[in-house]
């Protein structure tokens, strides 16, 4: 067990469940709902993972919100400081470093703004908060409820995902609504996955293509939050339900919620990226990632781009980088065709 605090998220569903395997969780959830259990937290054990050496220009600051919702909170680890022993703090610090290193080494990008913007993050946000987000200036991570979700820093792809929301803000600034919002989400998933693959030195065919692997506790029937390889298959749980992501335009979801389904329809461009990476083989960050990176950083993509516009832009980037009718150009064309676009 890593962290258990008062669970707010999915709490009611858990409280109401008849699942025997979740009986203890359900009882705890019911107590938590009437706020009669004292706040408590169990410190987990950080995975064995050496801290990468600091690159020049890398400037990390990790704060703790001390389980409140006040940002940024109190500084617990600044650049160059020794590990604290608190897993959330050290995972955020290391994850920022690995994300910075990836963009520096592969795309010669200096931080999320390409001008060495300091990377700030707050951990221990809120009360058993089951979420992580980018607030326009910094990353914020909750501890999870310990029943459904573990702490959100435990997955490098999640940390990369949040940092890339920052990068998007400084580049295409894709409007967080509807198709442009789903593209904003997809860009974060794509590069979040690549940060993880680069850290593990994995080729496209060896990678899991999962986002948030290990974020669910063992009580949940699911391997991760999302799958780029097979959107809609990341989890299928009696309590949570099934991963709702579509993998093709024919199953595009029209909804007013979730800013117009930004976390749902992102499955479609996610799958397109996977198809490009899979067709080209090797390390996905080298050619597929380069095409996507050029697409989102050349400032030619409008902030309200829809899927079709984005698809054309990736085709243009492939031609600019590798030539018309190149293997890469064909892979991009085929990939979008494969998800029902073009």
């Amino acid at each position, binding site marked *: 067990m890593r962290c258990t605090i008062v669970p707010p998220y999915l709490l009611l569903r858990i409280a109401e469940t008849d699942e025997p395997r979740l009986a203890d969780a359900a009882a705890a959830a019911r107590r938590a709902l009437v706020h009669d259990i004292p706040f408590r937290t169990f410190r987990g054990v950080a995975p064995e993972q050496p801290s990468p050496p600091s690159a020049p220009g890398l400037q990390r600051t990790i704060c703790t919100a001390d389980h409140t919702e006040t940002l940024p909170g109190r500084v617990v680890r600044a650049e160059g400081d020794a590990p604290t022993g608190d897993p959330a703090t050290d995972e955020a610090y290391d994850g920022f470093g690995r994300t910075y290193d990836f963009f520096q080494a592969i795309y010669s990008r200096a931080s999320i703004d390409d001008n060495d913007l300091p990377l700030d993050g707050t951990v221990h946000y809120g009360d058993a908060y089951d979420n992580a987000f980018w607030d326009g200036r910094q990353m914020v991570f909750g501890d999870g409820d310990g029943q459904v979700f573990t702490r959100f820093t435990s997955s490098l792809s999640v940390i990369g995902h949040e940092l890339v929301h920052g990068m998007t803000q400084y580049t295409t600034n894709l409007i967080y609504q509807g198709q442009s919002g789903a593209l904003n989400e997809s860009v974060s998933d794509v590069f979040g996955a690549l940060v993880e693959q680069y850290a593990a030195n994995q080729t496209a065919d060896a990678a899991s293509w999962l986002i948030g692997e290990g974020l669910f506790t063992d009580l949940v029937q699911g391997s991760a939050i999302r799958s780029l390889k097979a959107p809609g298959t990341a989890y299928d749980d009696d309590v949570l*339900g099934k991963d709702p992501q579509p993998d093709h335009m024919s199953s595009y979801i029209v909804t007013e919620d979730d800013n117009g389904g930004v976390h749902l329809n992102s499955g479609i461009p996610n799958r397109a990226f996977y198809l490009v990476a899979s067709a080209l083989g090797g390390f996905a960050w080298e050619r597929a990632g380069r095409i996507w990176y050029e697409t989102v950083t050349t400032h030619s993509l409008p902030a309200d781009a829809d899927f079709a516009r984005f698809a054309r832009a990736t085709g243009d980037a492939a031609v600019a980088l590798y030539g018309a009718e190149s293997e890469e150009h064909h892979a991009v064309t085929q990939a979008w065709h494969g998800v029902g676009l073009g």
Partner: protein
Amino acid sequence: MIITVIRSGGFAGISRQWSVRVDEQPDEEQWRELLDRLPWDRSNQAPDEPDRYVYRVRCAPHETVIPERRLDGPWRELVERVQQANAHDQDGSTSDNVGT
């Protein structure tokens, strides 16, 4: 009178929904007092904050969308009360759905 709260978004993108029948609540008067304080006409505009929650609150004829950052004051009180009332109410008059 039914109050429905739908929470969508978040990193995981898993939607949740809670409903309460006000006239079946033992403390109906307090519910109505709270409902009278809700600023339905307030603008809830907020800058984009990727992966934060979005709340939709319905109580006919009213409906409003509130980004997590703006869920304060009586809105926060209402959402928390609706969630707690669902936890206590096991008679099937509530709904609680995951997904879309």
